[in-house]
């Protein structure tokens, strides 16, 4: 018995830990550090129908225990990703969760209809929460009706389960999560970054060329835990949790809050071995806390 195994729609995970989208490229960079077979899954970088250049530089700024980014969904476009990036990942026995973004419903539908054909793509993460693009992104994730429509539209064309990524930049996340579940989403991923800003004291201007950016890293973990806890109270579909994970205790806190699996984002940048290190350290910490399997932990939560 694999005590770390997690079964959620489309994904038979050997462990609950995966790198978050936008923080791992398409895997090639980190494959130079370790064997990607180790990972529970890989959440690949966002894909749009056409190539996107992204925002002007500077695109990153540091904050206390975190960072702001405004990359702007730079990616080589659907055709290139289908032909070059996804086939490369086929060599690993690790499910891929493809992240899909767009500027219109047609964009999302176009990518979702095709990306499941790529080898190893076992699920789609619908990116309706990127705060760094003017058209699309977050605009789809802040209105329950719009999120409902979009989820329904992509569910109709996708050959793999749909996980919808929620934004924390809303007054109340609950009606949005409910609308997405009602539209037939297979799961949720949460949270995307928090909209933030930093100013340069010398120039008196924003540090990021885009002005604002998405805040990530350990500083946002309590927000993520709170939002997952809130959504878990009203939703039965699986949640992949993320937001500032840096230790095994963080992983377990996300699972206790209501997540079924956990993604690591920003920490990949500073600690390239963070995912395999967490996977290795998890069983010993589970022993210390009297957790036999992660499935038991979930049952405990459901029965509480």
């Amino acid at each position: 018995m694999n005590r770390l195994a997690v079964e959620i729609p489309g994904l038979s995970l050997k462990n609950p830990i995966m790198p978050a989208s936008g923080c791992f490229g398409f895997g090639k960079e980190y494959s130079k550090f370790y064997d990607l077979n180790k990972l529970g899954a890989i959440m690949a970088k966002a894909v749009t129908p056409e190539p996107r250049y992204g925002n002007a530089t500077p695109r990153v700024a540091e904050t206390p225990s975190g960072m702001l980014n405004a990359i702007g969904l730079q990616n080589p476009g659907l055709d290139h990703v289908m032909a070059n990036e996804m086939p490369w990942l086929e060599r690993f026995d690790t499910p891929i969760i493809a992240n899909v973004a767009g500027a219109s419903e047609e964009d999302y539908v176009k990518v979702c209809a095709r990306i499941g054909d790529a080898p190893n793509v076992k699920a789609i993460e619908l990116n309706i929460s990127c705060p760094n693009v003017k058209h699309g992104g977050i605009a789809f994730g802040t209105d329950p009706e719009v999120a409902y429509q979009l989820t329904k539209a992509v569910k109709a064309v996708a050959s793999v389960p749909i996980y919808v990524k929620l934004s924390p930049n809303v007054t109340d996340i609950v009606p949005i999560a409910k609308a997405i579940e009602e539209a037939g989403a297979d799961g949720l991923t949460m949270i995307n970054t928090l909209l933030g800003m930093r100013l340069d004291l010398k120039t008196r201007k924003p540090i990021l060329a885009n002005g604002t950016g998405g805040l990530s890293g350990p500083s946002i973990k309590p927000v993520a835990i709170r939002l997952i806890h809130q959504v878990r109270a009203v939703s039965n579909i699986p949640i992949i949790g993320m937001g500032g994970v840096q230790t095994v205790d963080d992983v377990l806190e996300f699972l206790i809050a209501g997540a079924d699996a956990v993604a690591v984002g920003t920490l990949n940048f500073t600690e390239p071995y963070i995912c395999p290190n967490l996977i290795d350290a998890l069983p010993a910490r589970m022993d210390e806390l009297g957790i036999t399997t992660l499935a038991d932990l979930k049952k405990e939560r459901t029965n509480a």
Partner: protein
Amino acid sequence: MRQTKMEVVSQKLIADRVFELVLKGDIVLEMNPGQFMQLKPRRADLLLRRPISICAIDKEAEQCTLLYRVDGEGTADFAELVSGDAMDVIAPLGNGFAPTETKLGEHALLIGGGIGVPPLYQLGKDLVAQGSTVTFVLGFNSAKDVFYEKEMGKLGDCFVATVDGTRGTQGFVTTVTDALDFAPDTVYSCGPTAMLRVVSERFANKRTFLSLEERMACGVGACYACVCQRTDDPTKSYKACDEGPVFRAGEVVI
């Protein structure tokens, strides 16, 4: 490229807010001139690593020298390091300067500005070792900012320009290069963007290589923070961290 621990051998102040840090570890065997390292500040709230270029590489002693200027909290944290401390690094990163772009007997011009000067030192050593001639032109704001003039001077002619004229020629690096009495075969440059722009214009007909500085997070090509626009196709970019930081002049928009 890997993550490893290095030991601090020594650290000293060599100019205004500029420190010379010597680190030891077997990762030095993998280093080339113009490459950089991602150093992790010890303060846990400073999340991002700091990219610092490699100034000198001593493979025999397994030691490398880094020169950095204290410009913020991360570099201020590095300034506290003392002999025997451990430093968490990801290294070596990026494509550096290729000394082989200069052939035996050819003359290379190495132009550095401010804290862009350090990576030119090891390049100069490698060029001299392979039988090329080197001339350095180093630009600083003021005499208090000048460093490594003597070290570079041991490898070839070394001219210094300061903006306020308190050391060397008053003016910019181009004030010196415009008056040079030889035509270089190759040009290597590292420094502020405005300086690199002028260098690429002045030496457009030479084999000219520029090392760019961009804000970055991962340093390994995953985050897409440090992109530079390609000249041949403005809809595409190179990542300074893994496809740079050294580019041929004219290859990217600066």
